């Protein structure tokens, strides 16, 4: 089985601060891979570099055999992504959001229409596809984002905390679709989460990152065994310690605050 993602000695510095410090790992094709770590450990920074929107300081990356810094188009065609923050256009309908995505990915009209209908049904939004996204609940938006990420038949699906803030029903639904996809179509899944029970249940393999470094990569059961813990959460704490991480509020957080004030907290 081939490697869908291969990362070697990846480094990202912001001035003096080292967000990602000589990280190496590989993700086998067709597996569900959990990328775990406390806040500010470097998870999102790593995903940004894998998905071509941030240039690494040093190191090499291969995504589906291509280099994200040089072969951006090939890499971008290979993956679909659900971002940590919502990334739909609220002022468009669900269908329009999907259609726009299909056009950006160069899908021909017939295939686009067919897959949009199939996927909105798949995530249970078939009868709401003509509604504006601003009328959707948080869980519905997430499901739509999953559907959109799958529209262009990607080989890899990146999910950055896909279930944050969702109720158990929606979480189960979302993981249900994703496991089904992985089984039936062999899509490789790379995800981050803070819910260790979730990671334990769905991952074939996990890597734990802390302070910008990989501290372990194994199957969930191997990790539990190695740390002699009953649950993955205990194993996680054993590996990363008890200290609570301070994360500086970034521009997005500040702006989201303003957005809440300006728009009466409609977002999310």
């Amino acid at each position, binding site marked *: 089985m081939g490697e869908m993602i291969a990362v070697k000695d990846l480094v990202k510095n912001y001035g003096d601060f080292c967000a990602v410090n000589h990280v190496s790992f590989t993700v086998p094709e067709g597996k569900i891979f959990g990328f775990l770590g406390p806040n500010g450990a470097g998870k999102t920074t790593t995903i*940004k570099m894998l*998905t*071509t*929107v*941030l*240039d690494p300081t040093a190191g090499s990356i291969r995504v589906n055999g291509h280099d994200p810094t040089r072969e*951006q*188009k090939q890499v*971008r*065609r290979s*993956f679909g*992504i659900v*971002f940590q*923050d*919502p*990334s*739909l*256009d609220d*002022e*468009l309908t669900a269908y*329009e959001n999907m*259609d*726009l*995505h299909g*056009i*950006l*990915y*160069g899908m021909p009209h017939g295939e686009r229409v067919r897959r949009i209908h199939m996927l909105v049904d798949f995530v249970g939004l078939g009868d709401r596809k003509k509604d504006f996204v601003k009328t959707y609940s948080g869980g519905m938006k997430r499901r739509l984002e999953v559907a959109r990420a799958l529209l262009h038949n990607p080989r890899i699906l990146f999910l950055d905390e896909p279930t944050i803030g969702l109720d158990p029903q929606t979480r189960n639904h979302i993981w249900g679709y994703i496991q089904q996809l992985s089984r039936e179509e062999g899509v490789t899944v790379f995800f981050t989460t803070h819910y260790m029970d979730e990671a334990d249940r769905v991952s074939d393999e996990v890597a734990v990152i802390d302070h910008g470094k990989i501290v372990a990569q194994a199957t969930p059961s191997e990790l539990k065994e190695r740390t002699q813990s009953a649950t993955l959460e205990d194993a996680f704490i054993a590996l990363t310690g008890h200290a609570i991480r301070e994360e500086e509020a970034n*521009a*997005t957080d*500040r*702006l*989201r605050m*303003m*957005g809440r004030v300006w728009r009466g907290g409609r*977002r999310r």
Partner: protein
Amino acid sequence: MKPIYILCARQLKRYVRSPARIVGSLGQPILFLVALGFGFGSMFARAGGGSYLNFLAPGIISMAILFNAVFSGIEIIWDRQFGFLKETLVAPVSRIQIVLGRTLGGAIVAMAQGAVVFVICLVFGFRLHSSLLVPVAIVFMFLIALLFTSIGTAIGSVLQDMQGFPLIMNFLVMPLFFFSSALFPIEGLPKVLKTAVGLNPLTYGVDGLRGSLSNAFAFGGMTDFVVLSILTAILLAIGSYFFSKIQL
């Protein structure tokens, strides 16, 4: 081409679907038109300038375009932080296509807003010199819109959040408006002010618009067109460059 088209169409859809924004951004131009147009009207006529409303209207239309264009460009900041921009940046299309689609869409929206103000001016008593030159006026409206959307795009690509917004309003957009020929004629201005007005790209937009709507060019239509076109090309290139450098 298709990605450019769909991103442009997105801006138009958003515009058409938010009547609050359309109506809201008409407030300021109407205020200027009524307060200044009628307030200074008699003085302007006594000084031998003719109808001030006819002089002012092209300036107010330009103002509406200027404000909406810069806003459209700066909208990148919103899109960037809350998401939609990311969706376009990870898509297998070149940044140039994305920035062209956005800028073109923003420019058309700003122009549409200018057209609405134009109609309002007619309601308040603005009279066209000749309807034959309306197509020329549309060209100038488009150039003003594209030029300032490009400036907005450049700014929106560099700024991280909206904190700098008052700075842009008070130190860029407002001066661009007041130190143009939108409110007063250029001849007879003190030398320093005249130079400032002459260096302001909006002056050439206003002049082109005033020329084609009221037949009162200060520089001549060709000069206006050439200056605006060259500046627009340069600023579009600068905006595209900054946009292409965005990292998340």
